[in-house]
């Protein structure tokens, strides 16, 4: 990869030459550059809020300093460990099962001969991706609510005892993982399907001629060729391993205090700090804690990948 790069760019132009030659390209980049400066880099400077006592008049930059008191307040609340653990465990499950389901269904879809079946099945699998978490939460509530939910109607019909999901915290990890896979698999499988489509078909034909079985082709050709795509997807997900999918947790759990020990993630926690207590300093401190954790994780993971197999690293 590196070698290619060097042969493509034969001469490194000096700064003013690049500007002169590519001024139009730079102009075309300008909207996105401004956007990212305003909406991403500016807020980064706002992390100093974590060390300030926010006052309306002073705003982000001119409020008085507060030392580490915001972090102390966060520690005293005693929830940080729990929400961090929840976020991490949920995301590990999402990433691992996500890869299995997405790659698995892409490979299976590719094995199916009937084009019509493939098309219809794919549309069905994509349907959950189209709805908002508000709608998903509403659908879920109407299936699982205790008194009238469809689930308990069926349970009663087959003579099983009903399940009161909204008062049973220990079932929620399964429910949330199921929901996430339900909503995400259709989309994810297209990413892998696109990668399968791009593979060299002669390789498969040659394998067939040599008498390889379908399973052998999947095992020794398809799956290894999907590894680069998988690595990108996994590394991108690892970069957000301490960020919970806010919509998923917020819209399905609502604000049930009973379910919180099993379902509260850093994002919902920060959001509640911000909305309920309006304590900007403390919630900024929690946000900084989250960002730093994410940044360390992705830097370390990408570094490791780069060491082992530079082609698979993200940057």
């Amino acid at each position, binding site marked *: 990869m590196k070698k*290619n790069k060097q042969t493509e760019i034969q001469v490194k132009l000096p700064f003013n030459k*690049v500007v002169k030659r*590519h001024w*139009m*390209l730079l102009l075309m980049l300008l909207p*996105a*550059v401004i956007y990212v400066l*305003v*909406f991403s880099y500016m*807020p*980064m400077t*706002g992390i100093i*809020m974590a060390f300030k006592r926010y006052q309306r008049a002073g*705003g*982000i930059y001119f409020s008085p300093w507060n030392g580490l008191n915001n972090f102390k307040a966060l520690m005293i609340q005693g929830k940080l460990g729990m929400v961090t653990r929840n976020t991490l465990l949920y995301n590990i499950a999402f990433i691992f099962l996500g890869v299995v389901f997405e790659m698995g*269904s892409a490979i*299976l*879809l590719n*094995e*199916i*001969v009937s084009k019509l079946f493939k*098309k*219809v*099945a794919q*549309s069905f*699998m*994509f*349907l959950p991706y*189209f709805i*908002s978490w*508000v*709608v998903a939460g*509403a*659908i879920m509530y*109407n299936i699982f609510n205790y008194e*009238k939910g*469809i689930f308990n*109607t*069926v349970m009663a019909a087959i003579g099983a005892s009903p399940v009161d999901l909204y008062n049973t915290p220990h079932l929620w990890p399964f429910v949330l993982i199921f929901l996430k896979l*339900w909503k995400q698999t259709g989309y994810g499988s297209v990413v892998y399907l*696109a990668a399968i489509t*791009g593979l060299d*078909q002669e390789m498969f034909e040659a394998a*067939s001629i040599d008498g390889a079985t*379908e*399973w052998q082709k999947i095992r020794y050709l398809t799956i290894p060729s999907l590894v680069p*795509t998988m690595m*990108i*997807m996994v590394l*991108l997900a690892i*970069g957000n391993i301490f960020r919970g999918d806010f*919509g998923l947790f917020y819209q399905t759990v609502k604000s049930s205090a009973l379910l919180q020990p099993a379902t509260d993630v850093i994002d919902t926690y*920060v959001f509640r700090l*911000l909305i309920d207590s309006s304590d*900007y300093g403390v*919630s900024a401190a929690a*946000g900084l804690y989250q*960002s730093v954790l994410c940044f360390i994780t992705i830097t370390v993971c990408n570094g490791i990948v780069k060491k082992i197999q530079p082609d698979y690293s*993200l*940057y």
Partner: protein
Amino acid sequence: MSSSKATAETPRMSRDLKKMNILGIILISLFALVCVLPFYLIIIASFTSETYMIRNGYPLLPSLKNATLEAYQLCLKNPGSIVRAYAVTGSATVIGTCLAVFMATMTGYVLSRKDFQWRNGFSFFFFFTTLFNGGLVPWYLLCVRYLHFKNSFLSLILPLMFSVWNMIIAKSFMAGIPQSISESAMIDGANDMRIFVSLILPLSKPLIATLGLFSALAYWNDWYNCMLFISNDSMFTLQYYLQRMLGSAEAMRTVAEKSGMPLTSAIPLESMQMAMTVIATGPIVLLYPFVQRYFVKGLTIGAVKG
């Protein structure tokens, strides 16, 4: 993807291929069924009368005898707020999607140009924002205090206008378009913007369809920005309106239960919620068939580097 199965279309399909085909059909059918089942149940429920539901719970099978349009009629009886929510969401979706697709493709094109020697530097400048960010609070305060997003239509457009992820998809796709196209046009004296608009964009239909769908979905399904920034109920987006309505219906039910008032068929809360859910999801689902044929082609991803 089907060319590898060219042998399969011939009559003598190997047994082993058949086995895989059947296994695929069974497993994919199961999963596809799980994906549509909830939608089926919700649509049935939205057409079922409240009295039936109170007696028997949610229906599993449609029955004409208990079918009613009552819930939809009640939802649309006072259509002012729904129509307004549709208008807000629709206009945000159309404007936002156009801007988002243009930004992602234009930026992606520049970064895919191999003769632009700063492209890796800029790629990382954008990509870094996905690795590290200031968190919710500084971003929220920036939007509210300095950009005056409270109750502004901009707050429904700008936060979703540029996504680095879409930019990476655009860049990966455009890296697959032969560089010689740009090069020969440059020799003919066309400038970069012209090359992008009149040569590259027409070759990127699958990409535009894919990014268009993603962006349209993001805007149509947005409740988050509305929840953060909008308090004026004439500017609620459809999803946020639904969220509010679900919340208040729940509250209404608790109030009714607490007061010991028997739930009569006067307010069909359940089926109304379902009807509202159907209305809020609505037309966006219809977009899919139009973009499906482009989808697999449009979604190539590659790393940030190179």
